[in-house]
């Protein structure tokens, strides 16, 4: 599966150097006038072979190590639980606004006001920490969609992306159509390895033109994507989706969007989240629904074997040094 490759294969041309210790032992051997009266000694002969072999091995190992052997990049098929979730997070200026809460009752303590963005981030972070085996992609959108993280199961990476979305203020405009298309596009040319979902986090609706609607519908159906819309309510006056019927014609953007999603012919669910608790609840629901077994391929980087070879060469060199320490250099 992982073929062996070399960083600098031409250095392997030096490999015949490893034969040098086998060819000539002249340097190691002391000229002697009359070997006939020396006893034949098997262990000495074996040790000499070992010496030659080790020397050849050392040179060979060094040459191979210098050539930089590495296994080529490989894909490992893995089966995990969890979904491929493309998170689509609204990063427009409105998301920097504070969450509107109902008027506090007397017994309720004053809560720290939180931005909608912060709320969304907290909830998403929770999702990440709960289901690290899911594979996520993160796209922020405002005027144009911005791909932050491609599909990965590296939650640290995603968390960093989420944290980054909390910095500064977003632009005023929101182009949800482009964002949805971008999120759908992220699934294109990916093998279907498990349940797919787009998690749209936004605080407002959008008017989508006919062309975009058709593209979104096609894309959603083609890629078998389920859609979760986490609607961060802007205020008391925002419409309540639960009360909206399919036949109700509404002129608010949110309702129109909701109805469009509902008629896409895919699995669609909307959550109206207005604080951490409800947001968390929404995320938990998604989590439970998109928890099917998932087959995916993990890319393994090539392993560099040269270090191992260098260490081996060091060991054989040490063995050579040991033999050299007991070896006569001269008869004098």
């Amino acid at each position: 599966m992982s073929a062996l490759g070399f960083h600098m294969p031409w250095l392997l041309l030096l490999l015949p150097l490893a034969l040098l210790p086998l060819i000539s032992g002249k340097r190691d051997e002391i000229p002697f006038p009359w070997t006939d009266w020396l006893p034949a000694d098997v262990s000495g002969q074996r040790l000499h072979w070992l010496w030659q072999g080790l020397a050849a091995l050392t040179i060979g190992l060094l040459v191979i190590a210098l050539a930089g052997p590495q296994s080529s990049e490989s894909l490992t098929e893995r089966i995990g639980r969890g979904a491929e979730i493309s998170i689509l997070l609204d990063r427009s200026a409105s998301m920097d606004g504070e969450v509107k809460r109902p008027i506090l009752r007397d017994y309720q303590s004053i809560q720290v006001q939180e931005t909608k963005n912060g709320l969304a981030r907290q909830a998403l972070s929770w999702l990440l920490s709960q289901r690290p085996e899911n594979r996520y992609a993160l796209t922020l959108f405002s005027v144009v969609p911005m791909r932050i993280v491609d599909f990965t199961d590296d939650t640290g990476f995603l968390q960093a992306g989420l944290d980054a979305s909390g910095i500064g203020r977003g632009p005023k405009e929101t182009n949800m159509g482009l964002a949805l298309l971008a999120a759908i596009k992220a699934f294109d040319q990916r093998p279907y390895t498990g349940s797919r979902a787009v998690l749209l986090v936004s605080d407002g609706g959008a008017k989508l033109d006919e062309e975009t609607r058709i593209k979104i519908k096609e894309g959603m159906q083609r890629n078998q994507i389920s859609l979760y819309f986490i609607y961060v309510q802007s205020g008391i006056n925002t419409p309540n989706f639960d009360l909206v019927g399919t036949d109700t014609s509404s002129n608010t953007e949110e309702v129109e969007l909701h109805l469009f999603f509902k008629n896409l012919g895919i699995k669609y669910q909307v959550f109206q989240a207005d604080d951490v608790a409800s947001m968390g609840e929404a995320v938990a629901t998604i989590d439970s629904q998109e928890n099917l077994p998932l087959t995916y391929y993990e890319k393994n980087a090539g392993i560099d074997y040269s270090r191992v070879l260098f260490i081996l060469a060091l060991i054989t060199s040490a063995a050579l040094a040991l033999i050299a320490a007991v070896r006569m250099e001269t008869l004098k």
Partner: protein
Amino acid sequence: MMNTATAEFVYRLPGNTSSSRPGAHRSNSRGAGMNFVSHAKLIDQPDPRRLDLRASVSNIQKDWLVRVNKQRASITVSAIVDVSQSMRFGADQNKLQVAAEFLEALGFSAGGLGDSVSLVPFDSVKRDDLSMPARFGRGTGQTMAEVVLSSKPISPASANIDALSRCIESVAGKSALVFIVSDFHWPLADLARILEPLAGSLVVPLVIWDRTEIKPPDSKRLLSVRQMGSKHSRHLWLTPTVRQQWEANVEKRRQAIADVFAARDVKPFWISNGFDPESLSRYFMETRV
């Protein structure tokens, strides 16, 4: 180089030699010597200086008699020296240097006795380019030593017994005393046969071995050696058994060489720790009359 005052040894020959040149050795020639042989008639030996009056008076035939003495003669000493690659081995002093010291002492000693010395080197062939014909004079030894020391082996191959045979043929009948200076690192099988031409001479083998080749080193354990002039190599792990075996093999070789010369009633002179002229003198004293 050794101090020439001490580098001298005394050699003697058993029996008589035959040489026309007066010298220090007993010979069969008659002449101005001290050894009485017989009386001869004055008419036959007209040397009135040697007239023996007492013998003449008691002679029945009333002849004048002169004493006939044996004259002491000089001889030619030959040194057949192995200059092959294996002679260039040695820890403190290589074997060729030992041989050169011997030659120097030989030249000096022979010069003192009035003998001539010739040098016949060989390695894988007889080295005519290095050989020196018999010469008189005390400085001969020094020249021979220099020739031997400055020689280069003609090939890395070991000394050849055929070459030794050539050398022996060239000195046979001319030299009364022949030294064979070598480490004898060649097959001994034919040695007895090729020594036959020297039947009338005294052959003294000087077997030069370096101490490092006859005694296993005791500093380290692993020894890799290669036969000089060949690719044959041996690797030894020097256990006590291997050391013993090594020493036993050397002893066996010593015995084998001694056996060859024992047939000629000659003991080899062993050198393994530098040339000592005194011990060579003692060798001649002890083994020769």
